[in-house]
């Protein structure tokens, strides 16, 4: 098992799933592949069919129109499948988290997937508006266990 997971971590093929984002995250994803950042160092490869993908780079707040296609795309991924929610839209619905034509981010999507019995093995959240390419690299590195997680829930008591 440990061997298997270590091999899986060595090659992460990602499918870029734009669910109605503003393009900023999407171009930063492409930017992460280009010479200055070069995500391919970590065995990341941008594939163009969900059938080939190990992880789904989900950008955007999931608009009502894109929802059915998004579900199909995720269903088409082989197990183990991972969703990497990018940007403030992907993680929390972003600036339009409560408008009439979006469903408001990845968490709602996960509920819908659960209802339909589509299993997602892992979910990663990468905040940023848009994400820096480095933020994506950081996420990949933490998936591979190169860096340790920094952010955790903080609760302050102000008297």
């Amino acid at each position, binding site marked *: 098992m440990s061997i298997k997971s270590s091999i899986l971590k060595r090659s992460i093929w990602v499918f870029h799933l734009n669910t109605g984002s503003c393009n900023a995250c999407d171009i930063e994803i492409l930017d992460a592949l280009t010479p200055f950042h070069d995500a391919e160092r970590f065995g990341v490869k941008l594939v163009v069919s969900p059938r080939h993908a190990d992880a789904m780079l989900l950008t955007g707040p999931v608009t009502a129109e894109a929802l059915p296609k998004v579900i199909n795309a995720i269903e088409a991924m082989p197990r183990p499948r991972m969703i990497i929610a990018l940007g403030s839209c992907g993680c929390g619905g972003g600036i339009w988290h409560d408008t009439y034509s979006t469903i408001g981010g990845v968490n709602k999507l996960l509920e819908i997937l659960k209802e339909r019995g589509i299993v997602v093995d892992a979910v990663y959240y990468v*905040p940023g508006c848009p994400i820096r390419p*480095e933020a994506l690299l950081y996420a990949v590195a933490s998936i591979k266990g190169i860096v340790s997680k920094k952010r*955790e829930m903080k609760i302050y008591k102000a008297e």
Partner: protein
Amino acid sequence: MSHKPLKLIIIAGSKGRVTVKYPYQEPLITPEFRGEIEIDPAKCIGCGACVKACPPNALELLESEKEVILRYFVGRCIFCWRCIDVCPVNAIKGTRNFELATDKHTDLYTLVVHTRTTCEICGKPFETTRMQRYIAEKSPVTEEYASICPDCRKRLLAETVSARRVGISEHKE
């Protein structure tokens, strides 16, 4: 077929490998970069100015009987730093931190819990303790009103006015 395409090799050779070995090296980041915000719980008075200014509602005030919670959801933050501009007590400061990736949704929250005072008269939950002190410091004149909720304040005013008119105060202690 010209020889020009071959120049690519020269260009690549002259450039070498430009890749920055992040996370093993420092990222390409300028001092200007707007990253995650930090709320200083020692300064925050829970006034909600930042909440009003925040375009994506990443900052929210959750009010309950006993306490007011300022909730910062970095997962929805657009890093515009408007909250920093509007904060009356400079409790919010910006950082250059972008390494926020996590696998737990709850990691993305920061909560600042404020206790509430209750109105001296009607006993309804009212502004945060910090807020009250802040107001008292800012304008000592309103000292006696600072701990009374707006509706009670209105009633008091009405009563005092009518008292002046009619001569007898209907306000019984």
